[in-house]
């Protein structure tokens, strides 16, 4: 008998909260007042944020100068392979009606350039760019080796197609002598890219470090001659190169090119007036896209477009709308209920 009762005992389920599904819990209860106040609060927040964001976006000055057509003859010149080395420049004048205050950033913008193609994105060698193994060109097809079999450095389609226009901005102070606007090449890349992800192979000088490799077929000069003045900006460490290597998500994209050096006339930013762009060209007609230069100021949150502000405003407005209609329905139902009770 005793054995049996023990047996029963052991079969008795444990009376724990988990096993009895009685864990202490908060039951989410949506009461009308709670939901409504939540909605109103969220709506107010969104509206407020929206207005702030719109205002800050409005404060941004931006000008875009397209130069594809104006520089078309240069491009045509380049079409002919024999003219490869010939210098071709074109100059585009434009007028800045308002002063751009604060830091001004110069971007180049490409239309219809697909940096996001699968094969294209694959076509790079991280170990080569780290400087650890220059000969590692495994993923770089079809730009891994030159015809005679020497590995290309930097290899791959991305590096090969680097944007190589040179853009010089000059300011016509009083219509006679153009002053070249001072620009900075530094800090246009992510810090980690410049100091961790991209490294030159170690050697006494760069040209010997890159010995045994050849330049990409579309490049006019080898990688160790990208910036001969500044060794910190040469080879794989070249800022323009690193910027290019961060592939853009969409076929229309903008990449940071230069920052305004705020000295002399430009302490305040870019003053209003006549400017001109001097461009050394890049074979763009072949992809039938468009190119432009963008000058822009930024706010604390970057060059936010109106989109974010509008999104917030619209969401806030819709939230309030929903809240009001909910309140109306709620009151109506309540009245009905009251009537029902009175009946």
């Amino acid at each position, binding site marked *: 008998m005793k054995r049996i009762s023990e047996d029963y005992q052991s079969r008795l389920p444990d009376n724990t909260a988990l096993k009895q599904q009685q864990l202490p819990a908060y039951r989410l209860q949506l009461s009308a007042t709670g939901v409504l106040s939540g909605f109103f609060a969220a709506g107010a927040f969104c509206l407020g944020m929206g207005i702030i964001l719109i205002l800050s976006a409005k404060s941004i000055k931006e000008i875009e100068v397209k130069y594809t057509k104006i520089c078309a003859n240069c491009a045509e010149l380049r079409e002919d392979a024999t003219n490869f080395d010939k210098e071709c420049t074109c100059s585009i004048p434009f007028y800045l009606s308002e002063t751009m205050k604060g830091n001004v950033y110069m*971007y180049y913008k490409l239309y219809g350039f697909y940096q996001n193609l699968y094969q294209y994105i694959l076509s790079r060698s991280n170990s080569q760019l780290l400087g650890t193994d220059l000969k590692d060109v495994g993923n770089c097809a079809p730009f891994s080796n030159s015809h005679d079999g020497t590995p290309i450095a930097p290899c791959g389609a991305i590096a090969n*197609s680097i944007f190589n226009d040179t853009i010089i901005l000059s300011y016509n102070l009083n219509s006679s002598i153009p002053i070249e606007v001072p620009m900075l090449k530094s800090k246009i890349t992510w810090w980690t890219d410049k100091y961790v992800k991209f490294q030159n192979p170690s050697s006494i000088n760069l040209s010997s470090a890159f010995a045994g490799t050849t330049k990409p077929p579309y490049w006019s000069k080898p990688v160790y001659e990208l910036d001969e003045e500044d060794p910190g900006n040469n080879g794989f460490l070249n800022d323009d190169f690193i910027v290019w290597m961060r592939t853009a998500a969409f076929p229309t994209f903008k990449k940071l090119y230069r920052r305004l050096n705020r000295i002399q006339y430009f302490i305040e930013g870019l003053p209003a007036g006549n400017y001109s762009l001097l461009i050394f060209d890049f074979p763009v007609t072949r992809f039938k896209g468009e190119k432009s230069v963008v000058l822009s100021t930024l706010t604390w949150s970057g060059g936010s477009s109106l989109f974010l502000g509008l999104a917030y405003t619209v969401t806030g407005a819709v939230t309030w709308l929903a809240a009001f209609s909910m309140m109306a329905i709620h009151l109506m139902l309540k009245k009905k209920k009251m009537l029902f009770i009175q009946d």
Partner: protein
Amino acid sequence: VANFYFLIIFLVQLMIDTPTSPITSGLPLFFVITVTAIKQGYEDWLRHNSDNEVNGAPVYVVRSGGLVKTRSKNIRVGDIVRIAKDEIFPADLVLLSSDRLDGSCHVTTASLDGETNLKVCTCICIMLLWVSKCFWVVVTFSFDQRRKKFVKSLKLLKIINFLKEIILFCFAGVAIYTGMETKMALNYKSKSQKRSAVEKSMNTFLIIYLIILISEAIISTILKYTWEAEEKWDEPWYNQKTEHQRNSSKVFYGILRFISDFLAFLVLYNFIIPISLYVTVEMQKFLGSFFIGWDLDLYHEESGQKAQVNTSDLNEELGQVEYVFTDKTGTLTENEMQFRECSINGIKYQEINGRLNIIFLQIKEHNLFFKAVSLCHTVQISNVQTDGIGDGPWQSNFAPSQLEYYASSPDEKALVEAAARIGIVFVGNSEETMEVKTLGKLERYKLLHILEFDSDRRRMSVIVQAPSGEKLLFAKGAESSILPKCVGGEIEKTRIHVDEFALKGLRTLCMAYKQLTSKEYEEIDRRLFEARTALQQREEKLADVFQFIEKDLILLGATAVEDRLQDRVRETIEALRMAGIKVWVLTGDKHETAVSVSLSCGHFHRTMNILELINQKSDSELFSLWIITEDHVIQHGLVVDGTSLSLALREHEKLFMEVCRNCSAVLCCRMAPLQKAKVIRLIKISPEKPITLAVGDGANDVSMIQEAHVGIGIMGKEGRQAARNSDYAIARFKFLSKLLFVHGHYYYIRIATLVQYFFYKNVCFITPQFLYQFYCLFSQQTLYDSVYLTLYNICFTSLPILIYSLLEQHIDPHVLQSKPTLYRDISKNRQLSIKTFLYWTILGFSHAFIFFFGSYFLIGKDISLLGNGQMFGNWTFGTLVFTVMVITVTVKMALETHFWTWINHLVTWGSIVFYFIFSLFYGGILWPFLGSQNMYFVFIQLLSSGSAWFAIIIMVVTCLFLDIVKKVFDRQLHPTNTEKAQVTIFYIQYLFKLKVCNSE
């Protein structure tokens, strides 16, 4: 099947050049297979252990002239096995000898058919030698050819089967069947796989998604080639083709490339069919089913039995039941007989509070009746307590109520106990005598013959020699089998009384006797012996002899035994009906008894118009019934018996089903087990395809339990056969309401949300990927990093839904149980209807569009998001979409959750935090073994941008805003009953709080 699909995707990835690495889908597949393997392995291991226990049990076998100890798995056919008291039979055995003088032994067949009473097995000593020779011969013959005959002739002895517990000192038997050929093994039916309605709709959804997947892949492939047809996009100068690709531009290779492109897109989008869905569903079912066994409300204290889950695949089906088929005896009733009334010599007596309203003198008068009751049976007295019989002083102290009787039928037990209460106590049978204490005076009756009960005769009799020397025959049986045989006694009055008893729902038996002269007895004895030892047609001969003996009886009276209703049966049936479930009672009992029990248990109401379809030979009545039932004003109850039912089903199936559907309660009596199953099958295949549930407790309910969608076994007195073959076993019928209304409801809600949510989150996941193809010339570039692709379903979004699907309680369980009507809210698989499915899918797509285009308008164009003017690349874009997605999908789960335990909080917010920590960690290091360093510092850069934060917030808010608004409006305008109940509970709590505040 699903794993096969994933294996194919994996192989495709290995074969062709695809945008995602094989690891991306290989790892989840590996994970899934590992989890499944571990689960299966664990179950196998348990099974293996228990097998070992049985197979390795030591047994003593006579071999090469001596007793050898061996393991039970080594027993061969023909071995002579020695079995001691309380041991389990290791094989099917034929009894050769026992240590008792008469060569008998008592066995129970609990593990075979669940009957716990003792059965006597006798080896007929005279035949022993011959028998063993005979069966040696038979046994060495082929089994299959001889089995039929073999088994038939063996009835002569009694086969004692595998695993019968024996209560005996020693026993020797020859093994006739071993291993898989034992009767027990033959009883193992391979259970047909039952699939739940949820699983079926899940498969439908899977096919829909497969179609979506394939059409997306086809669209992508076609668009890719349309782009390429335009020359300028075919091969931009900056992305030249490799030699290999150039070569393949011939026609043949072109087709090959087309196919491989198609496959590549297939691989790219394959995440839309969630591989982890299967694991999660499996785990949810497996872990979730523990809650039933753990539930204290389903624990029956008296028997110490808790609910038992035999398959976890059907949990959610408990929330979908539309028809309940229930057995009567042992399911609705206790199967615990209580003597209530009797009619002796035409006078009716009642037992009140354990005392028959009969005065002392009358007992003498009706002496014979009670003697018949206490002698005509096969009741055993528990061995332990009969040990002391014969020791004078002990015996006199023996209070009658403390005697423990074991009987093969509970009716017999009740009768013997009742007789004992009157004062005529059956104290034991030893060898060939039966001892009865009549009002304190011990009388010994010599037991001459037992004419055993069988279901054809529906009666049994004993022949005893009274102490005075006269030989008496007592017969007991159903009134239909006794009354016609009677020639004397108050036949008419008794018949009226019996009918009255039956109307009250009592089970009746009639008693009769006959005095035998010694000449008569000698003839009987001779004929019986002849018949019993006959080798051919033994049964027929025995039946003839019984027929000869049991005639010209004198009626003594009738007994009425009540089978008490179980606790709360009426309430449970009422609740089931309120929940929109139709209850059918299927019973083998007689029509009158069945109807009265139905009335008393609330299955039939007094107000109900009860229609009867009994002993039906033609179809005309069915038509008239149908016309009556078309009247919907009053409720109808239908009573059908087995013969009419089989007729109705054979010829007028549709009409009959129509009638049944119009009736709110149906009672089928006189049903054979297979007929029960057939009724269920008919309901199952009727046009609405309702979900059926069968409840039963005995071996005769097994076929119906197996036939129904959900089979529930009651662990009752008739053994474990039903419980073992059922999907769920509970101790009492009343537990059904909690099982269905609470557990079933929860499981259904949980799994329905689980399935919908899984599809939703994978639509969210993969649609941006598809949209991105429009911006990258369908070059199969992935939007997310491959590590994110892999971990999305495994780590980032898996736990909240799993925990939800284990713990969610959208309404308080007490409310669910007290308001059965809430069960209607989930009937017909409502949560997984095409409408809700579409809602979730569209929600998924719209969320995906918001993620993608929100991010696109934010950074897609040309905007710098960093304060220092630097730009983001494609990986940052993907990470932004992914971050918004992980947060939205997790918060969406949070919105669905009504029941917030600390575990929910932990996994929900933990998942988001884990995603952030993981991403910071993953992006913070240049992983040496990964080929691509795409994600290096991407996430950190993203988070360092203020705009990105604002964008994440607004996108999450916008996504969920739609959903919240819909929820709120739905609730306000057309709330379901469930939602109303949620609100009322809230208000009650609120009012209660107010009251408390006021009183303070």
